[in-house]
């Protein structure tokens, strides 16, 4: 008795689940990378704040000032800077801000660039906490200072 060869089964790959999973991953990482971009800070509100595109502020040193401890009487400082090769973010003591900004300003001056200090201060910190950074900018002769804020007026009619 002759056996018939089995009819070949068509092998079609179902791509739909793979596309679904890929979409899920893309959405997740796109949104998660936005979240992880900066340390969380409750920025102050300013109606006159202008939007800037990423990369529009050239040669920045971003200093984050946010409350630490209870009652907001202390602050912690995080410095995010670009040293020409990689982005670094580190916690700093207030007394370390002066030498750090001065070294960055000296490097920028050597390269013929203007250093910009971006200050991301939490709305709840005291002026003396930000004053530390402003004083360091003055000592390092950094004239261009940018304050980050939320655009608009706070919902609920805050200050």
């Amino acid at each position: 008795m002759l056996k018939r060869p089995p009819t070949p089964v068509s092998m079609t790959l179902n791509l739909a689940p793979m596309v679904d999973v890929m979409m899920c991953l893309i959405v997740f990482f796109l949104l998660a990378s936005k979240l992880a971009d900066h340390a969380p800070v409750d920025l102050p509100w300013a109606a006159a704040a202008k939007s800037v595109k990423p990369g529009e502020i050239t040669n920045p040193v971003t200093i984050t000032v946010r409350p630490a401890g209870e009652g907001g009487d202390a602050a912690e400082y995080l410095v995010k800077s670009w040293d020409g090769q990689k982005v670094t973010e580190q916690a700093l003591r207030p007394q370390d801000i002066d030498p750090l900004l001065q070294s960055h300003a000296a490097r920028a001056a050597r390269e013929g660039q203007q250093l910009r200090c971006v200050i991301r201060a939490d709305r709840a910190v005291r002026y003396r906490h930000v004053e530390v950074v402003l004083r360091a900018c003055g000592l390092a002769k950094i004239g261009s200072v940018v304050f980050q804020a939320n655009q608009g007026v706070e919902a609920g009619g805050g200050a």
Partner: protein
Amino acid sequence: MRHRLAPAAEVVPNLAPMVDVIMVLLVFFLLGASLNLVEQGVLQTELDPSSGPGGGAKVEIKPRITIALQDRGNGAAANIYVVDQEIGENRFDALVTYLRDRVRAGADRENPVVVGAETEVRWQFVISAMDAAVQAGFRNIQFAVSMRPSGG
């Protein structure tokens, strides 16, 4: 001759794609909701390094507007003074009006506006004072900084 009815085919909806789509939407809205979708912007200014704590070489006298912020209620509010005139507690709208009046009265927008705040004033109020000056059209905003370190 009797026709026998064909047995009804069992209809089973494929739920997998629906679950996939719902998962995508769920992840999107969960993350989107926690993103705090507020447009962020910047207030930019050029500080004068020669008049800062590290400088002191040249002094150029320009008519300037001084905004002073006094702490009230341990950071709860800020009392606003402009050129020694009291504006009131948290009256930043009145500050904008005052500064706009100064511009209408002929004040040069390039004149420095110096924001000085007591050390305990919340940063929000300092930014609100700067915001008021920018809204009124002033471009040269400066900050009074004490020489004695007080932060930390």
